[in-house]
């Protein structure tokens, strides 16, 4: 009730004082420039700020785990909406949000619904669903019948990408009675792009011709490796549409709707439709998808695109249950 009053009061005052609606994003230690969820979220926040004159957006970057609580607190003190990015912030958000009941909190890439805090909305993504389609595409496109996967640190999002990718390949094998194999490697970090590159080259040398990197900045090395390797070798991007980073060499990108989630979350808060809780965005919600394949549409045979579209429809309708864990994959 009190909160509603506050919101009403704010809304009434807006035309009079043109008081700004402040959105503060707190990055995790990856910081801006990670070409992944920090950048994607920031893009979403910026879109709102560009769209509405009275929305101001700012960002605080965190240096270490210990910064999350103070940074979220500071952000809460000066803003109407705080966007917390990255799964490592889950505990900090749980700690901070109840202290600032008048501020909306949006969490990206983790689920805090179990805590039942009324001013927190979190989003996660069904990475395995988009990876599933990417895996199918890779399986179908592979000449060598071997495809690769490179992960950063095996955190949930990365593992879901891996499982979904493997499931996609398995699906292709089943449908076309093939035996495409998946090579899997982990760089154990999200920043060492040279390592990403050498690991990709290693997988190419072991017969893979398409490598999917779900490893943050390491993926930049994967693209470089694909470029250098030349004809017949491809990479697959992750998180955001990375196709333009190596036009024609990145078959597709397994995108998460980070930007959209951030945009929707902030917009809801701005327009007064904020609902607490959690949303897991999958194919069905258009929360994850493959990129539009701007540069590769022409090299991918039509039948593959058609089959992918079919699988996507089936997944949306719940006719395929895409696995998200190792056990589910085995059963799949």
């Amino acid at each position, binding site marked *: 009730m009190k909160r509603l009053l506050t919101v009403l009061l704010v809304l009434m005052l807006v035309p009079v004082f043109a008081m700004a609606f402040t959105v503060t994003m707190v990055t995790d230690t990856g*910081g*801006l*420039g*990670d*070409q992944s969820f*920090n*950048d994607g979220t920031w893009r979403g926040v910026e879109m709102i700020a560009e769209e509405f004159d009275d929305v101001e957006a700012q960002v605080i*970057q965190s240096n270490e785990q210990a910064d999350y609580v103070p940074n979220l607190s500071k952000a809460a003190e000066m803003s109407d909406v705080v966007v917390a990015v990255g799964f490592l912030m889950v505990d900090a958000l749980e700690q901070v949000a109840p202290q600032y009941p008048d501020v909306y909190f949006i969490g990206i890439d983790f689920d805090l619904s179990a805590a039942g805090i009324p001013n927190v909305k979190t989003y996660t993504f069904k990475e395995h669903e988009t990876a599933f389609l990417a895996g199918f595409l890779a399986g179908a496109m592979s000449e060598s019948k*071997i495809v*690769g996967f490179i*992960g950063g*640190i*095996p955190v949930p999002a990365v*593992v879901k990408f*891996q499982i979904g990718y493997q499931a996609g390949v398995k699906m292709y094998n089943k449908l076309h009675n093939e035996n495409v*194999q*998946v*090579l*899997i*490697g*982990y*760089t*154990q*970090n999200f*920043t*060492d*792009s*040279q*390592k990403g*590159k*050498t*690991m990709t*080259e*290693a*997988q*190419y*040398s*072991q017969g*893979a011709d398409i490598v999917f990197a779900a490893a943050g*900045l390491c993926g*930049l*090395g994967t693209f*470089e490796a694909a470029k*250098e390797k030349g004809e017949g070798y491809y990479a697959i991007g992750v998180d955001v549409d990375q196709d333009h*980073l*190596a036009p024609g060499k990145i078959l597709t990108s397994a995108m998460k709707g980070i930007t959209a989630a951030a945009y929707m979350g902030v917009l809801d808060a701005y327009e007064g439709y904020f609902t607490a809780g959690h949303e897991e965005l999958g194919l069905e919600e258009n929360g994850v998808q493959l990129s539009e394949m701007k540069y590769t549409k022409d090299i991918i045979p039509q039948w593959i695109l058609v089959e992918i579209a079919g699988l996507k429809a089936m997944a949306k309708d719940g006719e395929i249950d895409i696995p998200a864990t*190792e056990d589910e994959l085995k059963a799949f």
Partner: protein
Amino acid sequence: MNILKAILDAFANPIFYSLTLSAATPLLFASLGGLFSEKTGVTNIALEGIMLLGAFSGILGTALFGSPWIGIILAMISGAAAAALHAWASINFQANQIVSATAIILLAQGLTGFLLEPVFGKPGSTEIYDKIPKIELKFLGKGSFLYNMIGSLSPFVYLALILVVVSWFIIYKTKLGLRIIAVGENPEAADTLGVSVYGIRWFGVLMSGLLASLGGAYLSVGELGQFTENMTNGKGFIALAAMILGNWTPKGALFACLLFGAADAMNEQLQSNPSLAIPSSAKPLFNLIPFVITLIVVAGFVGKTRSPAADGVPYEKKG
């Protein structure tokens, strides 16, 4: 038996060798750099920072002048500048060399992170720019084992190998090298013979800047065509370890870097080898391989290494 087969697979794979070389290259540049500095008696643990500056300046030069070659030059200039700072403090002001170097690492991390936004317009990483093209040895026959092994390498790889020979030559075959050893072992003796201790030490430290920055430039303009924050990822420290492991000789540094590169390449080959049915949750443990091997080599096979006698000891001119 699978693991043995997987290891043999790796050795049979020509790319294993080219990956060994490309993993060893940045380390080798920095190791040789550290070697020059320490041979003259100035420790330089700032290699990590100098590499990072080199990587950044390499891309900066490429972005400003459109040529990665100019990027390399700029990288070397920035590396020399950082080294000059270290030299100035530790030679002329007899500063604690470890502290001064620690400061330079921090400065490099702070400065490159800070400058990304004002210079390239966004934090974290830059756009992709041109990089130095690889040297293709077409005569080996594209696709042949030998071609896959060494047929397509960055010029940096050759440069690093050449620099091993050049460094060996400078240190052991020239007048300058004789003076470098003398200053690193007994600066007072050198001083009494009219050899400029400060001059030789400045040379050594500046060389470490030039070489280590090349190692950094290799990562940015040689491998990726872009700079990302903290992209050296501790390679400078590994290079330092390689230099010590190599007992302060160019040849030793070469072997130590190759060992590390090979261990790293082996890790990559083993992780992805499908014949080893390893659950993905255990794969990260493979990344331990290079470090464990180095530790074993250091402890078991090399034992005591001997640093130049005056390494790390500031020299104060008399009078």
